[in-house]
């Protein structure tokens, strides 16, 4: 391939100025129709050495940067730990960074860049819509990837044979939430509030199925656009239609804040269960404490505490590391539960088992993984099932417990009866 790398990245992630100029020169040459580009510049990209390139697809610009970018910190920690310990089969890992602006529309172009740079493994993108858009292209390009996508279909090994889902999916979340509402709280009139994203879509579908299995139809389903400046109409509709409990698929804090504040304005505090995005402490700054007393979100058992059970050693070690990273501040929960830390280690294990970096051999090793001890739970895959999480590892935890000193940023108190 004539252009192996669009840019060589330095260790610190900044762009080497010379490589920038070189790329500019290539583009200029191409635009002018000159043919000198490939023989002159073709050979040097491989000289970067023995490093294994892992695509690092994350937003560095756009409106979701602040909430999405930290999710990669765990992955970064794993990369550093592995590199310090001698790399994978003796080769260090280098991150091949691409900015997707958290926009699904950008993903196809990014996959093309990864492919062109002969990147065979990728971390990210984050977000279900972004992930599904990316998967459509990475599957063709045979790039082994783990995205931050809760959509159940992302864990379908037949559809996306190179994607490994290391997080609970929407089916699992829907089940946990529905069970809690109906079985633990005994609520029959459940309303669903959903953001208009692929994640929201999927989660609602899963929730409806889970409720159906319990013999219940939701009394109301409200779908709001994430950019709406005012969400009160949706909350009012839920209240009007008689919901006694709300399953809320909200993945960003501003929306959550608007919703809980509306509930407070309405003096209506039904139990709410939802996505781990609700754990972010930024919510505490936007919403008074009494508005979130009854709010619970899905989380990993390993990161929760009860009176009897405390989090494990490895989890506490990661939590402590995160507390020292400024960018992680306020996003510890999402960073801790992000699939990227486990994925990098899982990849290392698979490569070492396959004794090869070849995509198909690594895939084989991944497909036969059983009970890999990840931080979020024990991960298992089959060629068809690429969702590695066991539903037993998924619980509901209290949002308000984030202000408890025991939380250490990353931990939350398990909901009663879980």
């Amino acid at each position: 391939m004539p252009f192996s790398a669009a840019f060589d990245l330095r260790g610190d992630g900044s762009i080497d100025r010379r490589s920038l100029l070189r790329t500019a020169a290539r583009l200029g040459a191409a635009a002018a129709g000159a043919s000198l580009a490939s023989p002159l510049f073709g050979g040097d990209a491989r000289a970067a050495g023995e490093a294994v390139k892992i695509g690092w697809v994350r937003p560095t610009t756009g409106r979701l940067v602040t909430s999405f970018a930290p999710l990669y910190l765990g992955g970064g920690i794993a990369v550093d730990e592995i590199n310090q310990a001698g790399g994978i089969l003796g080769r260090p890992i280098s991150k091949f960074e691409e900015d997707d602006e958290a926009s699904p529309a950008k993903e196809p172009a990014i996959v093309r860049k990864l492919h062109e740079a002969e990147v065979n493994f990728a971390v990210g993108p984050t977000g279900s819509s972004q992930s599904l858009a990316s998967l459509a292209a990475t599957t063709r390009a045979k790039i082994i990837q783990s995205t931050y996508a809760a959509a159940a279909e992302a864990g379908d090994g037949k559809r996306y044979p190179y994607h490994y889902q290391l997080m609970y999916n929407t089916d699992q979340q829907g089940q946990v939430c529905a069970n809690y509402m109906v079985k633990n709280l005994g609520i029959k009139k459940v309303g669903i509030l959903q953001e208009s994203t692929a994640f929201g879509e999927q989660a609602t579908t899963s929730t409806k199925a889970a409720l159906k299995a319990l013999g219940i139809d939701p009394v109301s389903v409200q779908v709001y656009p994430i950019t709406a400046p005012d969400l009160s109409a949706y909350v009012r509709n839920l209240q009007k239609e008689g919901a006694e409990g709300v399953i809320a698929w909200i993945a960003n804090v501003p929306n959550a804040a608007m919703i809980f504040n509306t509930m407070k304005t309405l003096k209506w505090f039904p139990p709410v269960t939802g996505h781990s995005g609700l754990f972010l402490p930024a919510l505490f700054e936007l919403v008074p404490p009494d508005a979130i007393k009854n709010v619970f979100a899905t989380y990993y058992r390993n990161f929760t505490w009860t009176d009897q059970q405390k989090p494990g050693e490895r989890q506490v070690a990661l939590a402590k590391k995160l507390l020292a990273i400024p960018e992680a501040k306020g996003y510890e929960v999402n960073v801790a539960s992000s699939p990227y830390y486990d994925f990098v280690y899982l990849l290392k294990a698979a490569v070492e088992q396959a004794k090869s970096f070849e995509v198909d051999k690594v895939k084989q090793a991944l497909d036969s993984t059983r009970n890999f001890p990840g931080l979020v739970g024990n991960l298992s895959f089959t060629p068809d099932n690429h969702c590695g999480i066991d539903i037993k590892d998924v619980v509901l935890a209290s949002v308000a417990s984030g202000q408890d000193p025991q939380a250490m940023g990353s931990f939350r108190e398990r909901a009663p009866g879980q």
Partner: protein
Amino acid sequence: MASTAPSPTRMRYLPVVAQLAFAAAALSVPFFLSGGSYLLYVATQLGVYVVAAIGLNLLAGYVGQVSLGHAAFLAIGAYATALLTVDHQWSFWAAAVVGIVLSAGLGVLMALPSFRLTTWYFAFITLAFALVFEKMIVEWRGLTKGFAGVIGVPPPQFFGFELGQKALYWLVAGTAIVCFLIVRNMVKSRFGRGFVAVRDTPAAALAAGASPQRLKMLGFIVAAAFAGIAGAFFAVQKTVVTPDDFTADFSIFFLLTVVLGGLGTLWGPVFGALVFFLIPELLHGLESWRMLVYGCILLVLMLFAPQGLVGALNAGVRRLTARPRGAPGAAAATSAAAPVAHPPIAGAALAVEGLKKRFGGVAALDDVAVRAGPGTCCAIVGPNGSGKTTLLNVVGGFYERDEGTVQIDGRETRGMSAQAVAGLGLGRTFQTPRLLNDLSIVDNVLLGAFTRERAWLPEIVLRLPRARREAAALRAEALGYLDFVGIADRAEDLASEVPHGQQRLVEIARALMGGARLLMLDEPAAGLSMVELDKLEQLISRIRDLGATVVIVEHHLDLVASIASHVIVLDRGRVLAAGAPSEVFADPAVQRAYMGERAVQGAPAS
């Protein structure tokens, strides 16, 4: 014909050479890139943007309809293609056709408000539409799959072969070139002249019999169809279609592209897209500053080079190649030449009876009658504000009358639009010449032939023999008229560069070009020099003698006396006197109207 060549042949072929070179360069890009390369991907994307930008430029630049909702057209093309190919396994080609038709249909709908709203009201409405459309894509989840969008659009197939990246690039680049040529051929034809007339001087369009509504509609349909094509390619090139692709920002972006490149220039959209979409790819690290940088560029550009990059370039070239121009005396020199022969004109009689027109409480015309037959000249005189121009506007169909009859060659014109009245053979000039400043003199004259051209749009676009023959014949005719009025030497100059006096002559040539049999001239002599006045007098006499009916509104009573056989004096909307010039000017009432009470007592008998 004029003695000097309008422009050196070299200059005329330069654009063609540039176009060929650019097309060759564009088509050769894949030879230097691998099929899977990111650069080819970007180049294809650029081609898609160019197609859409060319359409938007036609609309915003030539027709003057600023649309801030262009992304909606692309979205329709892209979604139709994506949904039909992914969910219904249609072939790309069939799906794309549906997308284009739907997009053009939306174009028709968008054109309707532009008939009634002023430019920037309309701009706002389109911006609102873009925002609403963006929301609706998400809202109509059942159809559009909401925020997640349509994923996995398959590449087009061609006789069972899947088109690879390179083939797709060639397809897109080829389409872009074709679109460029279509627009080029269109703007050089009567449609282009009509568009510019609608944009700059709607009155001139109406006087030439061109319907602004139809032209706007045409502009919208073409622009929307191009956007639909771009959308279809967008879907297969990106393989993913999401609402994120078609935000209101993207619409604004598109307009900015075209403005940046140069509104109303052929190359504007091409350069605009190149600069706008390629620069951020090059300056990767600046990505997050991109919008900010665009905002600043746009501001600076608008202030210092409002014509955009290409406009600034053109102005520079024009300045460099401008040939030295003779003093106004040059015009006088041509007048010495022998008059050009012209076939007779079958004049149309004008009969106005009992005409009344009120504005608010004021009677602008009160029981006015005018009669003028073929081969005669009727003059309408009177002090300022006496209703002369109003009379012309009512006869021309620009204003509706309150009462009375107006007949042209025996046909009552009540209820006719201005362009319909023009169709009856009425040609007019305006008090301040209404020329299209951005077009050449000969193009201005050609606008007059708008309703006479027979070639259909497809013929023009494809430059089929009939269209080319017709264009050549009309051009020759237009040059003939310019020769007739005595300014053939300025045929290729921009209208804005021609002195006032000659602009009036261009208007007369334009009216004749339109097959005017009844010519209404509104103060043709105002602001003319003595030499020009003589020329004008000769010209009007000749037109009259060829058989045309001439109605002239004029203050130069000496001019009136020498060419008119009948004079009507208006005063505050009423006919004060009518008859032969010598009688009328001797009428004390007329002198009073002109020079005041005392003048009548001591005035010489004309």
